[in-house]
Each structure stands twice: as structure tokens, then as C-alpha cells.
């Protein structure tokens, strides 16, 4: 592996490193400023957006070179990669839910139903905070990932047809316009947090945006082995990547500040 290749991977890993740092700090709810406000409250949402964008970007880049031939095998391979740790963390989180699991009546049924949904990784599809943030709260993202992985072959195949040449700019504009309009329309709706932040079809737009960036990279026919050509392509995309992250971060902050979200009894777990 030469230096160029290593540096390329390091740069992506560096972005991931920043994203996880933002997310972890946002969960440190006890770190407050003088007025009692949380120091890193909103950076976690931007970190999650960055994760999703980067995943879409890399999925299209990788599978352009190595097309997905067997969708089931692809999905199973991904599940095999992340399910063991997911399951272990689910077990570790059980002591926090022992009251509901060992209780009686409706609470116990709800607890066991939540556990089943978590084991099947479908908790993200239920628009209730007590469900999608149940047990290991951050695992909603893994539930979302299952859906995004399932959609990846479609995205890799269709994104190239939909966003050729100059259509890339329009495609990105359409995605962000759709997200913005959705934020405005749903701002007062019940389950607003789920509708704007958690819902897999909404998050698919972020994933697709990452894929469209990669498509623009591919459209320029820039070889991954050519450092100079690659550098020019990525430099061109740098502004787009950060501006979109910022845009999504702004949208997240917008609804994160809503009273309905802020007064939630469950701690924020982005």
C-alpha cells in the first residue's frame, strides 16, 4: 500500500474520527456552561449527518468498481459485520430495562416488544421515542443502516442514470430543497423528532446526497490511482461536502431546539 492510498484512507477515517468525537461529546449531558446549557448539545446531529453522507459517498465509490451482484449476500455480509457487537451492547443495556422486563402488565409487554424490535433491528420504524431509543439508545442508527444497506444496490445503479453531468447540481439542490421543505412542513407535527431526524426514508435523502457526490466524482472519470486527478476532483467536492453537512446540521439544530424535543423525559441520543 503506497503513501497516497494510505493517506486517502486516513483522510476518510479522520472524518469518521471527527464525527464520532462530535457524537460522543454531545452525549456528555453533564458538561454545561455557566448558564446551565449543554456545551455540545447540537454537534452530535451534525456528526450523524456526516456519518450518513460519508457512508453514501463510499458505497457508490466502492461499488462502482466492484458492482453488487448478489443483494442478499451483500446485506448478509454487512449484518455479519456489525450484528455481533450490536447484540453484545444490547445485552449490556438490559440492566437499565430490568424494571419493565421483569414487571407485570402492559409495561412488561412493551419492554419485551421493544427487545424484540431491537433484536430484529426494526425499532427505527416505530415513531415513538420510547421505542427507537430503547435499550442501547444509539442503536437506532444501526437499525437505519440496515435499511440504507438494503437500498445501496438501487442507489448505486440508479444514481448514475439520474445524475449525469450537470444534473448532479440539480440533484443535490433537489435533495436539500426537499429536506428543507420537509423540516418546515413537519415542524409542528406530532412525533416531529422521528419525522425529521430518525425516519429512515428521510435519512435516505442524506445517504443519497453522499451517493450523488460520489457520482459526480465518477462522472468526471477521475482514476483513484491518479493522485493529481483525484486531488482536483476532491478539491472540487470539498466545498459541497462541508456545505451540505452544515446545511443538515442547521436543520437538525432547528428542530432540536423545539420545546417538544427539549422537554422529552428521555435524554437526547443522536
Amino acid at each position, binding site marked *: 500500500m503506497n503513501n497516497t492510498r494510505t*493517506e486517502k484512507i486516513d*483522510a476518510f477515517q*479522520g472524518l469518521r*474520527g471527527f464525527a464520532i468525537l462530535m457524537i460522543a461529546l454531545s*452525549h456528555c449531558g*453533564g458538561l454545561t456552561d455557566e448558564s446551565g446549557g449543554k456545551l455540545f448539545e447540537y454537534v452530535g446531529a451534525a456528526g450523524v449527518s456526516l*456519518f450518513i453522507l460519508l457512508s453514501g459517498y463510499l458505497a457508490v465509490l466502492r461499488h462502482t468498481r466492484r458492482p453488487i451482484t448478489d443483494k442478499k449476500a451483500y446485506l448478509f455480509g454487512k449484518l455479519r459485520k456489525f450484528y455481533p457487537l450490536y447484540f453484545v451492547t444490547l445485552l449490556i443495556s438490559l440492566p437499565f430495562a430490568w424494571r419493565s422486563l421483569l414487571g407485570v402488565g402492559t409495561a412488561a409487554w412493551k419492554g419485551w416488544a421493544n427487545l424484540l424490535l431491537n433484536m430484529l433491528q426494526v425499532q427505527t420504524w416505530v415513531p415513538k421515542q420510547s421505542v427507537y431509543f430503547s435499550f442501547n439508545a444509539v442503536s437506532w442508527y444501526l437499525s437505519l443502516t440496515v435499511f440504507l444497506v438494503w437500498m445501496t444496490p438501487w442507489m448505486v445503479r440508479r444514481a448514475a442514470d439520474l445524475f449525469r453531468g450537470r444534473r448532479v447540481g440539480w440533484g443535490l439542490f433537489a435533495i436539500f430543497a426537499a429536506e428543507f421543505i420537509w423540516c418546515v412542513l413537519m415542524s409542528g407535527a406530532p412525533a416531529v423528532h422521528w419525522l425529521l431526524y430518525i425516519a429512515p426514508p428521510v435519512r435516505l435523502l442524506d445517504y443519497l446526497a453522499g451517493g450523488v457526490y460520489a457520482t459526480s466524482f465518477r462522472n468526471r472519470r477521475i482514476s483513484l490511482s491518479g493522485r493529481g486527478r483525484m*486531488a482536483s476532483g476532491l*478539491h472540487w467536492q*470539498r466545498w459541497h461536502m462541508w456545505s451540505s453537512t452544515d446545511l443538515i446540521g442547521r436543520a437538525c439544530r432547528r428542530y432540536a431546539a423545539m420545546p417538544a424535543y427539549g422537554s422529552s423525559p428521555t435524554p437526547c441520543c443522536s
Partner: protein
Amino acid sequence: MAAESGKSSLARAVFTNHVIVFLGNISFELFLIHQLAIRYTEYLWQRFHLPCPPLQYALALGASVAAAWPWQKWSVSIKSRRQET
């Protein structure tokens, strides 16, 4: 992206910083573990009435890294073994 462009030495230094890259390498494991570590340390801090939340979070995130790193190494070795076979 900026680091790859070769235009900004500051961005290159930041995004290819060893600590940040290390966190990126274990980001998946860290993501799943850190919230639980925070909850367990919160329980300990409340149980024993300990002061200083920054210390609690430092311990939680340190423990998360300590748990995430071996798991990541183990999963990489499993993957390479699968590829060999």
C-alpha cells in the same frame, strides 16, 4: 476531503492526525459502546455521590476506547481470516 486535496497543509494535518484517524478506525465500535459507558458511569456517580462530571465523562470515553479497540482488532482479524479461506 480537504486532506486529500493536497492544497491545505492544516486540513491535512488535522484529518490525518494519528489520534483522529485512530478514533475513525474504531468509530463503529466506539459509537455502539460510548453511550452505555456514559450511562454506567452516571449510575456510579449518582450511587456514590461523586463530584466532577468532566472526570466521569473522561472515564466513560476512556473505557469506551479501551473496549472498542480490542473488538475492532478482533473483527479485523476475523475478516482477514475469512478472506484467506
